[in-house]
């Protein structure tokens, strides 16, 4: 029984080569002497031969040969293309590096991160650091009315009445003069609170010409005291 099993196994192993006629003579004799004992293998041989007769007609070799006839040309073409490996790998790194350098240059020079710190400083006029003696120079008759109004916001009480008068005279604009006076009297709204209508400001301006310096300072001091008291 065991011997038959071994023979059966060997018959199976030889069957394909027998069907395709690729078996040596010794194995062929062995196979043909034992095939009668295995009807299922006989059926197998018939089926295999029928199918593979059709496969042989397909001429796979011919099909493959036609498909590969230009393969050597394609390979040689690609080998030539791949040859300057050094140059191509250099370019592979050069272009991205150059691109990054351009972006960094643009970021630095176009956006100028340092500029963001300037605006706060830029808003401050230069005359904020003027010496007391130079303050009168602020009242330059070439300045526009708007410039004077803006300027008045930065004036401090160190200005003398003469300076104020001088500034007010050099401007022909009542509004500008008003603003100058008001900004230099602290809490200018207090003046309104004492009930002086705005149309009297020009009168006040006229009268200031006739007021002594010491009297004017006294008035200003009184106003200041009144404000502190409130």
């Amino acid at each position, binding site marked *: 029984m065991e011997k038959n099993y071994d023979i059966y196994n060997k018959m199976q192993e030889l069957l*394909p080569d027998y069907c395709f006629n690729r078996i040596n003579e010794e194995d062929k004799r062995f196979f043909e002497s034992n095939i009668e004992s295995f009807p299922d293998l006989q059926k197998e041989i018939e089926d295999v031969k029928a199918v*593979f007769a059709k*496969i042989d007609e397909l001429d796979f070799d011919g099909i493959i040969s036609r*498909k590969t006839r230009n*393969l050597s040309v394609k*390979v040689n073409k690609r*080998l030539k293309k791949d040859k300057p490996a050094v140059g191509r790998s250099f370019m592979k790194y050069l272009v991205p590096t150059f691109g990054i350098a351009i972006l960094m240059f643009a970021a630095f020079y176009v956006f100028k991160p340092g500029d963001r710190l300037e605006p706060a400083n830029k808003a401050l006029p230069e005359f904020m650091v003027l010496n007391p003696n130079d303050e009168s120079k602020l009242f330059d008759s070439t300045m526009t009315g708007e410039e004077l109004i803006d300027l008045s916001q930065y004036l401090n009480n160190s200005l003398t009445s003469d300076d104020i008068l001088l500034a007010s005279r050099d401007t022909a604009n009542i509004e500008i003069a008003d603003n100058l006076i008001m900004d230099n009297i602290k809490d200018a709204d207090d003046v309104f609170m004492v009930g002086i209508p705005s149309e009297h400001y020009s009168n006040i301006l006229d009268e200031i010409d006739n007021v002594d310096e010491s009297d004017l300072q006294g008035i200003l001091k009184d106003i200041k005291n009144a404000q502190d008291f409130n």
Partner: protein
Amino acid sequence: MILESDKELIDDYIKSKSELSATKIVRKYQNFVYSTALRYLQNYDDADDVAQEVFIKALKYLKNFRGDSSLKTWLYKITVNMVSSFKRKKKFYTVFSNEQDDAYLNIENQDKSPLQAVEDQEFELKLLSLLSTLPDKQRETFALRYFENLSYEEISKLLGTSVGGLKANYFQAVKKIAASYDKIMRI
């Protein structure tokens, strides 16, 4: 062991790096490499791409080939590795693509009538489709023995399987193909 004729080809290419010497190597093994790739990929265009890659890689590293195995064995292993790599890449790209792969076995059959050519094409499609359903070892054993006519010892070196195992694989593959005879013949 490397064949004498292969050794001459290799030495010639390493020395000269000429187009002619490269062409000789490619022409000798192009059918083998291409058909191996075709069995794995089931697509003529893909098999062509892989075959090109195999030869380019082989020629690039030919100077490192020690000759422990035959050149055919070496090329076979490169082909199998290249196919795996190709399949992985293709799988990745097909996830993002809706293209259907229609470049499947587009045969030109110049010697037969159009009707016969169509019948043969369908038969070939079914046969190759059937081969693709076999386990890799059975399919490769069958193809290398039947189509390439390699000895069991050579196939054993390629696939890393014993001769007895290969013979069993070969029988099983042939039996399965024969069992599907009716399906194949029904056109």
